[in-house]
């Protein structure tokens, strides 16, 4: 694998770990509104000697230095970093309600990254199962599955997603909605992996060692698990490397359009939604920082997929 692809892989892994520990990494609660700090730009940080210092104004309005501490203890447990009150550290500034953008970004990463990952896995599992069955058993089941796959591929998927999203009430409980959204994304995406896997299975089941095993009386389940399924793994890995960012984007797009998990759950899409207001773009440059982070993550995904494609033997 190329160095850039390896670096991307490591960066993505680190980001996933950080996102999983969002409650620890984020300096503030993502919904907490700092009323004195609406539209605050990113806090200026300086290195003075061996210490990192945040500059801010105290209650009287005088410019004051607040040392940034590692692992400070707040009223809700330890955090990764933070400044002593009333000092604040806003790495990406705050929005119009005074919510810390960086905390929202990290919590949003948890929502977006993991829903993308889970939906992609779900679509791959569904697709692989159906593709395996269709390719292996053939006949009417095969024809039916492939017709259905064509149907799903013929649908403009964004439209389908929106139409299916209408299935759920807009203001349901976020947890139910999250699972429903996952199921939705996964269920729409089964067609592509199913087709890929079916193609592999069709050629794999005619290979000589498979025919030999069948001749020796191996049951179907043995053939599938030991000979056919392993042959589909490289294809599925490549599919996943391309599909995961697509699903992350799908979740972000839904939230952007206001059809995601709702305002109380931070997602990358709802963070980006504030950018479609023109006065925000005009006046508050730091509101674009979460978008820049989002773009970097996509660059990493892209580089990783390219590295995998080059590293893999052609299917």
């Amino acid at each position, binding site marked *: 694998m190329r160095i850039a692809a390896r670096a991307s892989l490591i960066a993505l892994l680190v980001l996933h770990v950080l996102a999983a520990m969002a409650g620890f990494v984020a300096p503030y609660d993502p919904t907490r509104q700092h009323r004195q700090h609406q539209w605050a730009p990113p806090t200026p940080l300086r290195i003075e000697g061996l210490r990192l210092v945040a500059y801010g104004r105290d209650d009287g309005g005088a410019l004051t230095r607040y040392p940034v501490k590692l692992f400070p203890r707040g009223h809700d447990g330890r955090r990764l970093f933070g400044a002593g009150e009333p000092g604040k550290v806003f790495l990406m500034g705050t929005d119009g309600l005074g919510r810390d953008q960086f905390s929202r970004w990290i919590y949003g990463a948890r929502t977006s990254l993991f829903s993308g990952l889970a939906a992609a896995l779900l679509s791959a599992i569904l697709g692989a199962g159906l593709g395996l069955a269709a390719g292996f058993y053939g006949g009417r089941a095969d024809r039916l599955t492939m017709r259905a796959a064509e149907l799903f591929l*013929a649908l403009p998927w964004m439209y*389908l997603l929106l139409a299916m999203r209408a299935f759920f009430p807009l203001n349901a409980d976020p947890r139910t909605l999250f699972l429903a959204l996952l199921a939705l994304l996964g269920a729409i995406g089964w067609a592509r992996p199913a087709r890929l896997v079916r193609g592999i299975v069709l050629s794999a089941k005619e290979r000589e060692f498979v025919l030999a095993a069948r001749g020796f009386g191996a049951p179907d389940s043995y053939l599938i698990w030991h000979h056919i399924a392993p042959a589909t793994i490289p294809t599925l890995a490549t599919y996943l490397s391309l599909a995961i960012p697509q699903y992350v984007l799908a979740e972000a797009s839904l939230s952007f359009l206001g059809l995601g998990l709702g305002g109380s759950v931070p997602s990358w899409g709802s963070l980006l939604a504030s950018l479609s207001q023109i006065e925000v773009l005009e006046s508050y440059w730091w509101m674009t920082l979460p978008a820049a982070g989002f773009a970097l993550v996509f660059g990493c995904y892209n580089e990783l997929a390219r590295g995998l494609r080059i590293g893999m033997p052609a299917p």
Partner: protein
Amino acid sequence: MPLPFLLGRLWHGALLLFGVSILSFAMFELAPGDYLDEMRVNPQIPPETAEAFRKQYGLDRALVPRYVHWLGSTLRGDLGLSFAYNMPVSRILWRRVGNTLLLAGFSLALTWLLAVPLGVWSAARERGWIDRPVSAFASLLASLPDLLVALACLLFAVRTGFIEVSGSLPLAIAAMTMVSFPAVFRHVRTSLHEILRSPFIGHLRAHGIPARRILFGHALPAAANPLIGLFGLSLASMTSSTLIVEVVLNWPGLGPLLLEAILGRDVHVVLAAVMLSAILLLVGNLVADLLLYAADPRIRREAA
């Protein structure tokens, strides 16, 4: 053009459309609530009025008869009434479709007009002064999702004041072109690059045929096949990929209409918009097949 080939394709497309209609109808109908729910909780509207509306729109009937009714009237060209606009869906839809097709058509043309010459040039002069920057730019754009590209265009327009922001066609075209450029450019570049390395080009060179004639007379026609397929594909996917750009840049196309209709549970508009985008997709695929048929003798033989 052979009739059986065309007829087979059309039949296939009609079947798919039928499937799409069942799927989207069932999905939307099984969802809880309808447009009249809001009317029902509104204290200023008496419940009898809401009931009367319900009867008038046929919302009180069971799923299957309603589907049959909807299918019948759609086939007759009557797309039903929009609840929110209180006018026939077709009247709203045509204007919006026109806008989407305008955006899609212009950006498709611009994408191909830019990507093909640049791709050919990059493949012919690999690592030259045009290949390096354009390839790097295409890689950058390819890794950016359409949502971010559209937002970046908006940011650019707002910050420079260069283009009028709201609902501006040039801005939307620029965004769409940037979204679809990298795939086409890379496709042109790699397929031509492969052809230029194949043995027959070497033979042509050995015969002393000028480089320009090899490139345009021999390599480009040989590379055309996958490009025609890609053209049909980008034609087909144009309408669904315009959705995000339309919403972000406030272009009054099919996308914002669909979004609005979903949020307002305006059934007939949603169904019509989904069906229409499926039709556009199928037409794109059909055009691609026909183009390939016309361009490639192997496919002609296979179909015969």
